[in-house]
């Protein structure tokens, strides 16, 4: 039997009850800020604080500034302030929030530039994200994963042929300053758009110059890549706490796509600055300094971050999060503390060499020091079939080229190896913002390994290559599209490519070479 409750009266009763409940005193965990400075607040009286728990500190104007607990002592706790520490004075009240740090996640973030707390920086208004995720989450377990088997094409021939990257892999980009590390990351993002892979790009700028970030965003917009990209930006002027949080927050945003059957690529630019920000925080929190003054848990800092990039099992939706962390070395020293740590955590590294860069070999990838531990399984059959001997050919060339500097008289085989090596090096040069499709890589590498370019003068190699690609695209569009699916082409198509390549190359062979042949 229905009762005669009036909903309008009930509404008023609820309103009164809410007001009454709000007035009831709550038992809160409250502490007092004893010292503050350099982005760190020391708080007395928050004995129940949890690690990484958010603390609301009331500043002198009555505004709330958030901090998170990192040092839990018996007497007092050390908290890192996520805001302006100059507004907090000793004696300020600090309350435990009972929450750990969360950031907005979801498709609403795509196309946006945000800070590590998910606040917009692009002036496009609030982010209407429905979901939030914890900044610190544990990585998927063994049973939730699958081995890396799908390619993540960078569009850079040297990488996709010799150090291939798979979806879910962690491939480190390492090198000195100004050697083209970020350029590789940007090209990879552009390639995801050009090849329409559907991979979501996440770029994390950690303590970067804002002018560099602005330039990058401008370029991404011009290339149309921003529509599938999230940029998380922190500048060198931001507090160390925000720089420390940036990669974790970005990973939380990437995990949304990984866990929802999608694929995402995350670029940490760079983890050297991240380690430096953490060192600053740790020293201010008075944690004991270790090697190079980094705290004892600096390895765990990056290992727990990069473990979150994974290829999930079919039961978990088969999504993936691929990581391209960047590390800056000093004078090519990859045996420094942070580089060795991250090298051991990742599934391979792409080493950029300053010498190569200044010789005009760009991308300046060192073939000898670069490696991909798991990407081979993810390489497309087409590229794999022509890239088998490439690494060996180039390594032999480098050795012989060094040796030949002391010798003038070389036997024919050595000379041939050197000439092939020079042409391969020339072919692997690639301007920035121009990633190659699978068919373009396949054609170039097939023609090179078949010796098509051997007689072409060095300065004409790139022109020959461009002509070959243009003619194939024009005359054999369908066959090239078929190669783009990744499958190895049949013998007939191979012959067709080689014949056309030989024909085009012949038109560039000099009179000298022709007379030698006769």
């Amino acid at each position, binding site marked *: 039997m229905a*009762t*005669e409750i009036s909903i*309008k009266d009930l*509404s008023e009763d609820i309103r009164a009850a809410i007001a009454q*409940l709000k007035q009831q005193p709550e038992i809160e965990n409250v502490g007092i800020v004893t010292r503050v400075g350099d982005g760190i607040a020391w708080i007395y009286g928050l004995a129940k604080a949890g690690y990484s728990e958010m603390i609301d500190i009331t500043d002198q104007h009555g505004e709330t500034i958030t901090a998170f607990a990192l040092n839990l002592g018996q007497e007092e706790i050390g908290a890192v302030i996520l805001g302006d520490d100059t507004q907090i004075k000793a004696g300020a009240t600090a309350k435990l929030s009972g929450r750990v740090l969360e950031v907005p996640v979801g498709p609403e973030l795509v196309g946006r530039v945000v800070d590590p707390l998910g606040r917009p920086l692009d002036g496009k208004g609030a982010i209407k994200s429905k979901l939030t995720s914890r900044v610190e989450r544990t990585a998927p377990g063994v049973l939730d994963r699958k081995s890396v088997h799908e390619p993540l094409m960078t569009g850079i021939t040297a990488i996709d042929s010799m150090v291939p990257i798979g979806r879910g892999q962690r491939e480190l980009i390492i090198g000195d300053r100004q050697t083209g590390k970020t350029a590789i990351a940007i090209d990879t993002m552009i390639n995801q758009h050009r090849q329409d892979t559907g991979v979501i790009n996440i770029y994390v700028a950690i303590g970067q110059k804002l002018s560099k970030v602005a330039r990058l965003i401008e370029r991404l917009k011009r290339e149309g890549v921003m529509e599938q990209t999230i940029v998380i930006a922190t500048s060198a002027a931001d507090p160390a706490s925000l720089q420390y949080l940036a990669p974790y927050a970005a990973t939380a945003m990437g995990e949304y796509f990984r866990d929802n059957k999608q694929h995402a690529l995350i670029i940490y630019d760079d983890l050297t600055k991240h380690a430096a920000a953490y060192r600053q925080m740790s020293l201010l929190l008075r944690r004991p300094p270790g090697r190079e003054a980094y705290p004892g848990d600096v390895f765990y800092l990056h290992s727990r971050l990069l473990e979150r990039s994974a290829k999930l099992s079919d039961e978990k939706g088969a999504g993936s999060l691929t990581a391209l962390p960047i590390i800056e070395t000093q004078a090519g020293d990859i045996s420094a503390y942070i580089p060795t740590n991250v090298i051991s955590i990742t599934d391979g590294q792409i080493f950029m060499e300053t010498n190569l860069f200044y010789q005009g070999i760009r991308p300046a990838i060192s073939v000898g020091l670069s490696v991909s531990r798991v990407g081979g399984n993810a390489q497309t059959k087409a590229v794999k079939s022509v890239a088998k001997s490439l690494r060996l050919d180039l390594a032999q060339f480098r050795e012989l080229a060094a040796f030949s500097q002391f010798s003038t008289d070389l036997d024919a085989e050595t000379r041939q190896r050197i000439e092939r090596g020079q042409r391969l090096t020339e072919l692997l040069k690639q301007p920035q913002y121009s990633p190659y499709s699978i068919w373009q890589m396949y054609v170039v590498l097939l023609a090179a390994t078949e010796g098509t370019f051997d007689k072409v003068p060095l300065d004409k190699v790139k022109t020959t290559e461009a002509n070959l690609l243009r003619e194939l695209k024009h005359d054999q569009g369908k066959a090239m599209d078929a190669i783009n699916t990744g499958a190895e082409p049949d013998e007939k198509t191979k012959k067709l490519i080689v014949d056309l390549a030989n024909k085009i190359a012949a038109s560039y062979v000099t009179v000298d070479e022709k007379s030698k042949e006769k």
Partner: protein
Amino acid sequence: MKVPRAQVAEAIAKKTLTEHDPAVLAREIAAYLLTENRVQDLDSLMRDVMAYRQEHGVVEATVMSAHDLTADVKSEVAGLVQDHYPAAKMVIIRETHDPEVIGGLKVKLANEQLDLSVRARLDTFKRLTLEGTK
């Protein structure tokens, strides 16, 4: 995970059909809204509750008038609502005062309103007059 508003409304509506003490129910709902941080949803939630109850035969009408209603007027309004909702098993009439109505009355249901006020008549008259002068 946030429970959808329609689901919460349905649960509350079912409770209102069985619970006899509105004060107890109000406290329970207030506590829920506070813990779930959904106090701002109260108005829309209650409208959903009214709509649900209306679908299940309990129609609630708020009669707004400038003066107290006589018993005759009240039963007339109940009859009017009953005519509008022939399936209604129960009609709850709730009376409120609003001097802005001037004369006559306004009947508000969950998602509908019947304006029989002098103010509405005057507004119509004004609109028609203005249209006529154009």
